[in-house]
């Protein structure tokens, strides 16, 4: 077993405010192996996008990494100077964002943006870069790439724009792509195309992906492992199949049950009562304790650690065998 491509250790992201720091990502650790796809799923405000932003060094101030370490390919990257992080980002770590309209510059042609990105990271001449841009567009399934190169982002449809963004992320053959809700802004039929595209490209290039989304369906289709986040913490992490088929953490259980499925004609959907606490008012102990159907006194006192179960690891005291004995 070689060292993981990405290792996040006890990462903590804070937003300082006048009334003290709000902890948006609270002491989370995970790893991504080479070529692996890790899905990160959670509701809005769970800290999943911030985790992605912290890894690529694009946390928006005043948000900052307040603790923990991030290793990429054995090298610590959370404390790199800006210029060095900039060289790494794009070359080794690519990024795909949710809204393809805001991640492309409307004033430049798609070709110019691609060529500029390629030449920033690779020692290629203008013509070589152009040739690479055409082959990238072809690879992401854009018809007539030579002609499309001279067009502006507004001349592309939503799905085609997201393909361009993927091509941009692939420019320098990165080892890791952080994809933040890459399919959320798209229609279902286009979503399926983009998911299939990301899957195919990662298989062909051996790229690892951190796929951040709120859509369990997309995770089920693409990811190898999944981390379920709640209130800035990892509630459960494990192989995607086991987490979906036999969730362990009460939050994951509730989350899976509340997704309506075609064909099951229940009179009621299972629901989790209440909603996720705000950052300023996360309860002591387990963050899920006010909503948990299986809560007991230890959950109010002690914050659970990730405890391995037969299939996945869950941060829930229910699975603490040492205490049960």
């Amino acid at each position: 077993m070689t060292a993981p491509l990405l290792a996040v250790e006890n990462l903590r992201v804070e937003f300082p405010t006048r009334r003290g720091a709000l902890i948006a990502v609270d002491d989370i650790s995970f790893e991504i192996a080479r070529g692996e796809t890790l899905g990160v799923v959670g509701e809005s405000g769970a800290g999943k996008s911030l985790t992605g932003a912290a890894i690529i060094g694009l946390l928006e101030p005043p948000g900052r990494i307040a603790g923990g370490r991030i290793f990429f390919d054995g090298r610590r990257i959370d404390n790199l100077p800006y210029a060095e992080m900039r060289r790494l980002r794009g070359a080794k770590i690519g990024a795909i964002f949710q809204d393809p309209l805001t991640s492309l510059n409307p004033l430049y042609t798609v070709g110019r943006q691609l060529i500029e990105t390629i030449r920033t990271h690779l020692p290629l001449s203008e013509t070589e870069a152009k040739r690479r841009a055409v082959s990238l567009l072809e690879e992401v399934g854009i018809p007539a790439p030579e002609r499309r190169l001279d067009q502006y982002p507004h001349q592309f449809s939503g799905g085609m724009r997201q393909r361009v963004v993927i091509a941009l992320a692939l420019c320098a053959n990165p080892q890791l792509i952080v994809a933040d809700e890459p399919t959320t802004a798209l229609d279902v039929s286009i979503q399926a195309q983009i998911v299939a595209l990301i899957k195919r490209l990662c298989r062909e290039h051996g790229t690892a992906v951190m796929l951040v989304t709120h859509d369990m369906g997309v995770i089920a289709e693409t990811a190898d492992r999944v981390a379920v986040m709640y209130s800035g913490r990892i509630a459960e992490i494990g192989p995607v199949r086991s987490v979906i088929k036999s969730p362990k953490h009460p939050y994951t259980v509730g989350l899976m049950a509340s997704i309506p499925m075609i064909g099951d004609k229940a009179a009621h959907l299972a629901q989790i009562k209440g909603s996720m606490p705000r950052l300023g008012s996360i309860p002591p102990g387990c963050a899920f304790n006010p909503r948990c159907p299986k809560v007991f006194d230890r959950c109010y006192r002690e914050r659970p650690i990730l405890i391995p179960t037969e299939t996945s690891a869950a941060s829930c005291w229910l699975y603490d065998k040492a205490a049960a004995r």
Partner: protein
Amino acid sequence: MTTEHPFVEVENLTRHFDVSKPWLNRVIERQPIQILRAVDGVNFSIPKGKTFALVGESGCGKSTIAKLCVGLYRPTAGSIRIDNTDIASLRSRAEILGVRRRLSMIFQDPYASLNPRWRVADIVAEPIRAHHLLDDATAIRARVDELLGHVGLSSRDGEKFPHEFSGGQRQRISIARALASNPEFIVCDEPTSALDVSVQAQILNLMRDLQRELGLTYLFISHNLAVVSFIADEIGVMYLGKLAERADTRTLFTRPMHPYTRMLLDAVPDLAMTGRQRVPVQGEVPNPISPPPGCRFHPRCPYANDRCRRETPALLPLKGVATPGWVACHAVEEHRLPPLT
């Protein structure tokens, strides 16, 4: 369906938008008038106390239908009869108000649809005041408390402002406001798509319970097939301003006929992880300003032939099937479609 008198009846509903450039530009640049046919001859009906859902991708005209049904737009042609009153033909303010009281709407974005400067009690009381249903302040207050109770909020929440609530609670406030005028018909335009799944389940359950308690009729607009399969009794699948298929919920999911419906169903992520191989959909929705001739779906349809490229299919009832269904497809009519696998 045809035997009982439907509560809501939409016939040949059409709405065109003029999206041309200004007159001077047209003259100088020699460009013709451009018409966007957002809704083009749509028929459906909803029996009292039932839910009809419209599904489709963005730009297919489903939200335009929602706005037409509550009178926010006037139809270009066709009629919308609610309890036998055509709301498009009404002219006098008194008549319009009389119908308006009987219908209301829930919007997609609970952050944009509540006035941030009003207290929740005032937001919920607005329809009561607008329709002069109650005049006495204490009676209004009591009614607002009752409505907040209906949607699972407490009367103390009436004193707060919308920003003090989460997305799901805000959507509860919108529902309370929609119920304030005692409507019989509620148009819901993507009411849960801005919400997280665990909260979405709460809102869908609440809407179902309210329907049962109050006998509400819903027109439910959504792009999410799974949500629609939970809430709807009957479903219409829209594509570029036209209905492609219409059937009751069970039938639509077990026996999808139109190639577009099959394609949409195929695009739903496989959460049960059956290992089913998805066929990714080919192509994208064309520009609705210049839709393809003939069947609007033909450029993406694997079964299209010459007739599909020339002739627009009509929404025809299916023959020789156990449960009724309507499909607008030449291939279905000619039995050219392969059976479902």
